[in-house]
């Protein structure tokens, strides 16, 4: 194999590959990226056996072929090369080495046989549809903060993507929860997505997927089967196994009878929560919300370290209420609000609280209160 490729293009492709490979793994080939050159395209393939990403980039191919080389090392080298450089990659089958050359820099890297590189088994995708990157980005970005890290509840370690009846009609819905908070985000159901099996997209996949979704207008082809999900742009194809488990019935968790309504500027609210929480040295900092007519008092009382209080002007016209939350959870859900005010709906100090972004019905958040 012998190719020449622009440094920026190479960096992006190898960057994607090296972030998929596992840093600590016991199978040497999994640390490598498989580079395949044919026609005037080079593809870079990397996998951790759960996710496979293939990045195709234009290049001048002098001699077609394939080679595998350490993804992290190649990425480091390319990163350190000067911007705008033309990089030549040449694999020598006899010596089993890959030469990387740019300007006066020359590198000679060890390779592993391309036959050893595991290729993810293809799946029978039952549903295929196309969605704009901006839509998918919003679905996953707004839900991912609530993904659980608890391994004992592995079925919560991802975002549950499925078809649902939303408040505005059929929806492509993403839900994540860790038992303390929950995010439910809807988007209008894209054509062809009807009948899609619900899948739990693992946390790592959600993180890697983000890199495909930078360009708002890009069309993303989504393919779903019971066991795999695939997201593809014209350059990149990412295939991931889905979590083999049943996502709990979240609908009964979302309160419907909460009547006490608080409307507050989300940014001001988040800043105030952050300020008062400073005095608490506990790991789970509890903030108390005391609500009275058009007035919200945020307070923290940490016997060992101090106390803090801050008053906010809000819209609140219901009965007095005192309720506590983990400060971190409040900050995280408040930061989901983009433009509108945050609207909280409470029941009692022991019941789950609902939050919406203004009048937007496509995003709902639930947070569990905490005894204070």
């Amino acid at each position, binding site marked *: 194999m012998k190719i020449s490729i622009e440094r920026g293009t190479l960096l992006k492709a190898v960057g994607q590959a090296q972030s998929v490979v596992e840093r600590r793994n016991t199978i040497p080939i999994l640390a490598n990226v498989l580079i395949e050159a044919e026609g005037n395209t080079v593809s870079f393939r990397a996998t951790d056996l759960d996710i496979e990403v293939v990045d195709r980039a234009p290049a001048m191919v002098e001699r077609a072929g394939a080679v595998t080389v350490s993804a992290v090392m190649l990425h480091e080298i390319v990163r350190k090369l000067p911007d705008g450089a033309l990089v030549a990659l040449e694999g020598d089958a006899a010596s089993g080495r890959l030469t990387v050359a740019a300007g006066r820099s020359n590198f000679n890297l060890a390779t592993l046989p391309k036959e050893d590189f595991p290729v993810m088994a293809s799946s029978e995708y039952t549903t295929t549809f196309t969605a704009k990157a901006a839509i998918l980005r919003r679905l996953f970005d707004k839900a991912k903060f609530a993904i659980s890290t*608890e391994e*004992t509840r592995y079925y*919560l370690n991802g975002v549950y993507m499925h078809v649902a009846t939303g408040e505005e009609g059929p929806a492509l819905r993403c839900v994540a*929860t*860790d*038992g*303390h*908070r*929950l995010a439910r985000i809807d988007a209008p159901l894209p054509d062809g997505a009807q009948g899609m099996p619900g899948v739990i997209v693992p946390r790592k996949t959600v993180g890697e997927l983000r890199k495909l979704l930078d360009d708002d207008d890009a069309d993303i082809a989504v393919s779903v089967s019971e066991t795999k999900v695939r997201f593809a742009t014209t350059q990149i194809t990412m295939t991931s196994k889905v979590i083999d488990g049943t996502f*709990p019935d*979240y609908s*009964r*968790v979302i309160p419907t009878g909460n009547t006490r309504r608080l409307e507050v500027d989300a940014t001001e609210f988040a800043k105030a929560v952050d300020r008062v929480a400073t005095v608490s040295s*506990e*790991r*789970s900092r*509890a903030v108390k919300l005391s609500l009275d007519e058009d007035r919200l008092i945020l307070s923290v009382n940490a016997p060992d370290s101090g106390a803090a209080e801050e008053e906010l002007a809000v819209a609140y016209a219901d009965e007095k209420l005192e309720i*506590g939350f*983990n400060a971190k959870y409040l900050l995280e859900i408040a930061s989901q609000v983009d433009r509108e005010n945050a609207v909280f709906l409470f029941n009692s100090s*022991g019941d*789950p609280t609902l939050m919406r972004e203004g009048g937007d019905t496509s995003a709902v958040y*639930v947070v*569990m*209160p*905490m*005894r*204070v």
Partner: protein
Amino acid sequence: MPSLCRACLKTFDAGARCPACRSPRVTAHPELFDLSIAHMDCDAFYASVEKRDNPDLRDKPVIVGGGTRGVVSTCCYIARISGVRSAMPMFQALKLCPEAVVVKPRFDAYVETSRAIRAMMAEMTPGIEPLSLDEAFMDLTGTARLHGAPPAVMMARLVKRMEEELGVSGSVGLSHNKFLAKIASDLDKPRGFSVIGRAETQEFLARQPVRIIWGVGTATQAALETAGIRTISDLLRWDRRDLGARFGSMGDRLWRLARGEDQRAVAPDHRVKSISKETTFNEDTADPDILDGHLWRLAVQVSDRAKAKDLSGRTVVLKMKRADFSLVSRRHALGDATQSADRIYREGRALFDAAGRVGPLRLIGIGISDLAPAAVADRSGDLLDPDATRRRKTEAATDAIRARFGTDAIIKGRALR
């Protein structure tokens, strides 16, 4: 021989009675004034407090504990003559001693008296390690010049003050380490004062059964018995390595304690790092139902202890020892701290299930670590487990019943497995 009158605290050289006050309450021992590690244990503490506060009860057998379905928490020495013992079911106790007066526990009064005793101790030394409301280790090393009296006299003065000012009596054990001091305090109850000197340590221990060693419960006793070990002198014949090979870390401990060696310091602020309970089975078992029953009972014990100490844990730890003594342990960090038996059990059970088949076990244990104050425990519910709140309330109600009627007054079915 150095002698001490416990009635008037006079020290003298010889005589069965005090030369000053003629009292026969004399303690004499060659090393009496050279030993400084003490253990003080109140005599029938709860019952003594009750008798003090209600003089009508003074000459009657008194049982402190729950109603007819509860258990004996403490009984006075008069009741003990009839054979009543603590932890005995109440109906059995009343069969043995029908004239006994049963009194419900008044923990506030016991805590108050315990605080007063602790204050008296604090005047003597900072080296106090309370074990419960009614017993504590004390290290009086180096306090003789300050008090102008050796530790033995100071301990005699402590129990005398307790009787005079608080109306409760205690027994003292004095020795050269904690292990022996605790054994000594039990030798001459009530109102006792026993001394185990360095010179007699070996000879004294050799006569004792192995169960005198703290931590040797029924299971260990049975295991030792299988190995032909009944008394400490049996233990002394064993090689250190053989004991270690057969009984693990317990073996080494047995080897040292059998020789009266105990290096543990009296730890004033004995900071608990974890709370755990484990049990060794008479027969190895892999039966998940049996193990589940054990897990639940142990979780309740861990939870009870955490609640008593106002503590909670952020990590649940499961420990399993296989038949070949190899150890499997699993831990799970929780989002928030807990002291609930239900939660500890559920997390432990999840760890047990996730561990897969580990084969027959000889021991199972569960505990909490990464401790936090009880105030931050179980503060938030679980969205996906709405029943958790209901179970928490059930546990609180159960705890109230158990506090009043004894720890076995109400139990879950799974505790019977």
